[in-house]
């Protein structure tokens, strides 16, 4: 297990470093001067003032030097300060990372709680109405753009029933109940969207496992169908389901961009969007780094979970 872990960790670090380097170079090559935006229309048109601020921020140095400085500071846990607010980027990230993780975690929970049973129904009741309904529900959840799903949920649960707040964020320390209530709709939106992916995989994988010899044997020796599914087939069928969570982790994270905007959830994605609009380089880099790190962390956890469940994956040749 240990060499497998080390190998995965190393490859995760290489991926993160590669992604960070590409992002750093790309955003500096894109047109648009943050200093001109910072200074506003009047001072922004004065070349002397712009040059002075650029020098202060180190933006006049060659790109390679800027990257070395940034990477060097990063090694000391320093991501620079926001060009807009002057606040350390790390502080802002530390505030927002838990909120984004909370949203993703709650969404994933919803997706699994709804997706796996739906997949089982779709596989068991193949060709019957319940199976068809489950399949349709899965494709619908997966095809609905996240904001459409979110708006429909707001219409039903906020506007229609008045049970839940339509948007906003309340810190847990201020009011735990309101905090959890404000989490429900964003998490449901992410979860119901991702549910389709999980349900489809569960159905396909279960159908495959049900045809294997050991399940046929279990049935042949007289085990009821339900028991054969839940005791023998489902645990094995879940291995590819765990894998698909890792493969589609990008969709899960990408969904938060829309969700955070729709529900005013102050996480990493909304930080990235506002920083991108004002070309706040340090914040953009910091937010992207944090998002990629979360993404790689999810893939890593998924790989480890698979390695734990299925020993065959741990071998280097597999």
């Amino acid at each position, binding site marked *: 297990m240990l060499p497998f872990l080390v190998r995965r960790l190393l490859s995760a670090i290489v991926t993160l470093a590669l992604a960070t380097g590409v*992002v750093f170079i790309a955003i500096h090559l*894109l047109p648009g001067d943050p200093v001109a935006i910072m200074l506003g229309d009047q001072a922004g048109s004065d070349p002397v003032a712009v040059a002075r601020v650029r020098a202060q921020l180190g933006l006049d140095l060659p790109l390679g030097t800027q990257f070395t400085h940034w990477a060097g500071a990063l090694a000391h846990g320093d991501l620079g300060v926001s060009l807009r607010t002057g606040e350390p980027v790390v502080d802002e990230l530390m505030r927002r990372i838990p909120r984004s993780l909370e949203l993703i975690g709650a969404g994933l929970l919803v997706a699994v709680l709804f997706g796996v049973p739906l997949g089982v129904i779709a596989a068991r009741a193949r060709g019957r109405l319940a199976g068809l309904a489950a399949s349709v529900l899965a494709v619908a959840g997966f*095809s609905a753009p996240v*904001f459409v799903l979110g708006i429909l949920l707001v219409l039903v649960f906020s506007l229609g029933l008045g049970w839940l707040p339509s948007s906003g964020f309340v810190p847990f320390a201020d009011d735990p109940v309101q905090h959890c209530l404000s989490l429900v709709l964003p998490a449901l939106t992410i979860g119901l969207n991702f549910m389709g992916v999980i349900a489809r995989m569960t159905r*396909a994988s279960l159908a495959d496992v049900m045809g294997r010899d050991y399940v046929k044997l279990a049935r042949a020796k007289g085990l009821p169908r339900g028991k054969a599914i839940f005791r023998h087939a489902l645990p094995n069928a879940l291995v590819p389901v765990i894998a698909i969570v890792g493969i589609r982790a990008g969709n899960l994270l*990408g969904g938060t961009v*829309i969700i955070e905007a729709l529900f005013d959830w102050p996480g990493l994605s909304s930080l990235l969007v506002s920083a991108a609009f004002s070309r706040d380089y340090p914040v953009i880099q910091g937010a992207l780094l944090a998002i990629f790190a979360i*993404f790689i962390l999810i893939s890593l956890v998924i790989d480890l979970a698979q390695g734990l469940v299925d020993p065959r994956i741990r071998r280097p040749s597999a």
Partner: protein
Amino acid sequence: MIAFLRNRTGGLSVPIALGFLTLVVLAAVFGPALGLLDPYQIDAANLLSSPTAQHWLGTDELGRDLLSRAVYGARVSLTVAAAAVLLAGLLGVTVGVGVAFLGRRAEAAAIRVVDVFVSLPEIFVALVVLAFIGGNLPTLVATIGILYAPQFARVTWGVARGIRAREHVLAASSLGAGNGWIIWHEVLPNMRSIIAVQASFTFSFAMLLEAGLSFLGLGVRPPVPSWGQMVGSLKDYLFTNPWPVLVPALALFFTVLAVNVLGDWLQDVLNPELQQ
């Protein structure tokens, strides 16, 4: 025809999806000739209205006709998606097939780079690029097309490698056929179905990405409508009248659903051995 379209699991879903998509495409293509109201005409007396005799699908926050804006929005959404798929396909297939004919070392290195890009969530890169450059049709197409090219490369690389190792291709190669000849006469004709399926999935991804970006205000500039952008601005009036936002939202939803249903069907028909 209907019987042929009826697949094992979907029943009538394939013909319905095909019919709906045909309708949307026809509306988008012939939109200006349909005699609709001007999609930019502001009607201050009818803000955020539900369907009326004059405005069949209601109006938006400036009183503009939602039916004609939805039809013009379809033009933007479908054009961006189609052009992005074309670009992603051209780039991706070129890279994917090219990589399969590189030497072993270079092949491994190149596919590792492609893998990094396949796994990165596209929307984060796209939103930074568009916030910097500004949203317009060519930038949207280029950004979305480039971001989905690695997926095409990944898929076609695998298939090209398989075809290259087949006996009759090895025989052709040992008889002196060059790589160019093999790619043109053996590899590309044999991966048409894979490319078609990948294109159909990429089409729905591209539509969703464009809609998401436009929803955030990063797509085409107002007043030009796109479905995502209409949802983005109308969602603020949800509590005034929930009807208007549903028009572009459901148009987008049903179109993507139809594309996905057809994609699944295409997958079943063209590559029955590839059941996931």
